């Protein structure tokens, strides 16, 4: 087991190194796709850390992302950029904890509805704040380039993977797995289920907020409709489920093909993008009910079986 851990860590490090070299060899166009992939990798992987084992579908990604975007938008005038990322992370985690305490004792469906409303709630609070204070649109004018954003996102993704790897092997990870299988059993075994869920929910909260904080300089102009777009929450869920949430590397094998497919469709059929995306999603769900993880592991199992017979 120890040997396998070292092997997978080494492999992950190698993949990261190759990915980090992308800006050195690619043109700006590939890089912009790389930014999208890195962004959704952070969001979907951290989402699956919580939603995978607990089966609570969170639609709050846009809320945390927007909190992060506004942290950079408002803070960039007063603080150095590097301080804003941890601040965004803390804010995201705190909001996630508050939401978790309020909703995670309830059954799944209430949680889904609450998280969906959360992005709209925070968006309305910010709009109200702007209306009262008379603040105008927020400009984030920095010298941060696309390459910088890409590398930052990659670093964050590495942290998320490392965090997920460590949690999986910790007491918390063990508790979550039991909880995911049967909450009553977990409670009888002495696991404080509500606390475990809240702790775990703080991870996607913090990661999505930091991701938003990193992307604010890319958008230059921050307004509520840009920062809190509900589409983001749904895309993260779709990508994570497409990949599969049973493995740490599951979401990323959903993010990459989905982003490339999206890009191919928007480039080729600009007038029918949404329609075709919907259709391809239907096809994917029909053909790959367990996501790419299911496909890959099924293939592996077949190969092993074939090898044994031979």
């Amino acid at each position, binding site marked *: 087991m120890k040997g396998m851990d070292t092997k997978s860590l080494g492999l992950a490090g190698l993949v990261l190194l190759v990915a980090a070299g992308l800006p050195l060899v690619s043109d700006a166009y590939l890089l912009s796709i790389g930014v999208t992939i890195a962004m959704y990798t952070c969001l979907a992987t951290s989402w699956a850390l919580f939603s995978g084992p607990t089966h609570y579908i969170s639609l709050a990604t846009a809320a945390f992302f927007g909190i992060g975007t506004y942290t950079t938008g408002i803070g960039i005038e007063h603080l150095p950029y590097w301080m804003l990322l941890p601040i965004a992370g803390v804010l995201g985690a705190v909001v996630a904890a508050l939401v978790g305490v309020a909703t995670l004792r309830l059954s799944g469906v209430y949680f889904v509805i609450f998280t969906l409303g959360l992005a709209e709630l925070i968006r309305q609070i910010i709009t109200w704040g702007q209306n009262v204070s008379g603040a105008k649109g927020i400009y984030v004018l920095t010298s941060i380039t696309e390459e910088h954003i890409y590398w930052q996102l990659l670093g964050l993704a590495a942290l998320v993977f490392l965090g997920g790897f460590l949690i999986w092997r910790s007491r918390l990870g063990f508790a979550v797995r039991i909880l995911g299988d049967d909450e009553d059993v977990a409670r009888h075994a002495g696991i404080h289920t509500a606390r475990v869920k809240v702790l775990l929910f703080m991870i996607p909260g913090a990661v999505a907020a930091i991701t938003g904080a990193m992307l604010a300089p890319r958008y230059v102009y921050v307004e509520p409709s840009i920062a809190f777009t509900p589409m983001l929450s749904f895309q993260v869920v779709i990508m994570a489920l497409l990949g599969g949430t049973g493995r740490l590397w599951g979401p990323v094998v959903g993010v990459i093909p989905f982003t490339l497919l999206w890009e191919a469709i928007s480039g080729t059929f600009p*007038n029918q993008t949404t329609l075709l995306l919907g259709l391809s999603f239907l096809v994917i769900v029909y053909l790959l009910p367990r996501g790419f993880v299911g496909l890959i592991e099924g293939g592996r199992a077949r190969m092993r079986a074939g090898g044994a017979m031979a």
Partner: protein
Amino acid sequence: MTRYLTAASLVALVAGGGAAFAQETLTIGAVGPKTGPLAGGAAVTYWPNVQLWAHDVNEAGGIQVGDTSYMVEIIEYDDQTNPGQTIQAVQRLATQDEADFILPPYSTGLNLAAAPIYDRFGYPQVTSTANTGNVDELSDQFPNLYVTLGAASGMVGGLIDVMTELREAGEIDNTVAMVNVADAFGIELAEEARPLFEEAGFEIVYDSSYPLGTQDLSPVIQGASDANPSSFVAFSYPPDTFALTEQAIIEELDVGVFYTAVATAFPAYGERFGPAANGVMGIGGVNADDAGFQDYVARHLEVTGQAPDSWASPMVYSTFQIYQQAIEGAGSIDRAEVSEYIANNSFDTLIGPIEWDENNNNPAYWTVGQWQDGTYRGIASTGREGEVDPIVKQGWGE
């Protein structure tokens, strides 16, 4: 990909083989919302102008650069009203499609998200639908970014000048009810208006806001009506512009000035309210009597099957004309030379001459218009020709 090569330009292409001029094609990119929250506005103001401009240029034989005439071929992308998609689409145009020029995107947020990409690849970005109060900082960061539509301060200043004029003529008194939609541009306009009203000697007797997307605006109109104002001013967005007017008609709001902001200049507004719209003021305007504008409206109807609005539509078309004139003026399709030409010249466009101030900003724009006998006419501007006198609102009757 949607590519416009009209029948006329195809004929010209074939015929061009025998002529003395060489025929080439210029690839022009266009990125804007076809889906998402801003798709409705873009369908009125942006996309029809892309189609019309390409049609007009090709029908006239293309863009003339020395001995060569360039037909334009448009590549359109939908950005889904998502700045991440705008960025990606502009990148795609620059590096994959190798577009010679890229028309400006739609709206303030999407234009500014794309500004670093235009800047990096040296594409001039002459915006037509961006409205920003931060031009000096922006023009430092993005020297190829131009703003033509104007700023909130000018829009509000124009309205208050018109109202002051009516007050001095004894048509209205100094009481104003003011409401705004609680969203970016609505907030900015209201914020500009409060001190300016005060300065001009107006008394704001009712000041309220409503969230974006509010369906029932009758409390807003009732609240304003209870304050018994002489003027009603709403810094509103397209859906609420219609809803507020509807409610004012129902409540028979009795005011001398009735002003709603974005979408008042849409042809749909005049169609919907007919004679009741008479005297309604709105943001932005146009010289409706100008022969060039009337010709533009006719071409717009013929080519796109719909009428343009009377504020941003002609501005969008005018910025497209700037690209054409700059390429011809520079005598080159080299982006650096064309950018240089744009920066150092003024342009004769559909809305009149456009010159840049020190921040690459167009200082002369329409600020207020008014429905008068079924036509939306400009009544105030910061230096445009053809302003007509405002009229006082006389009820909502037939």
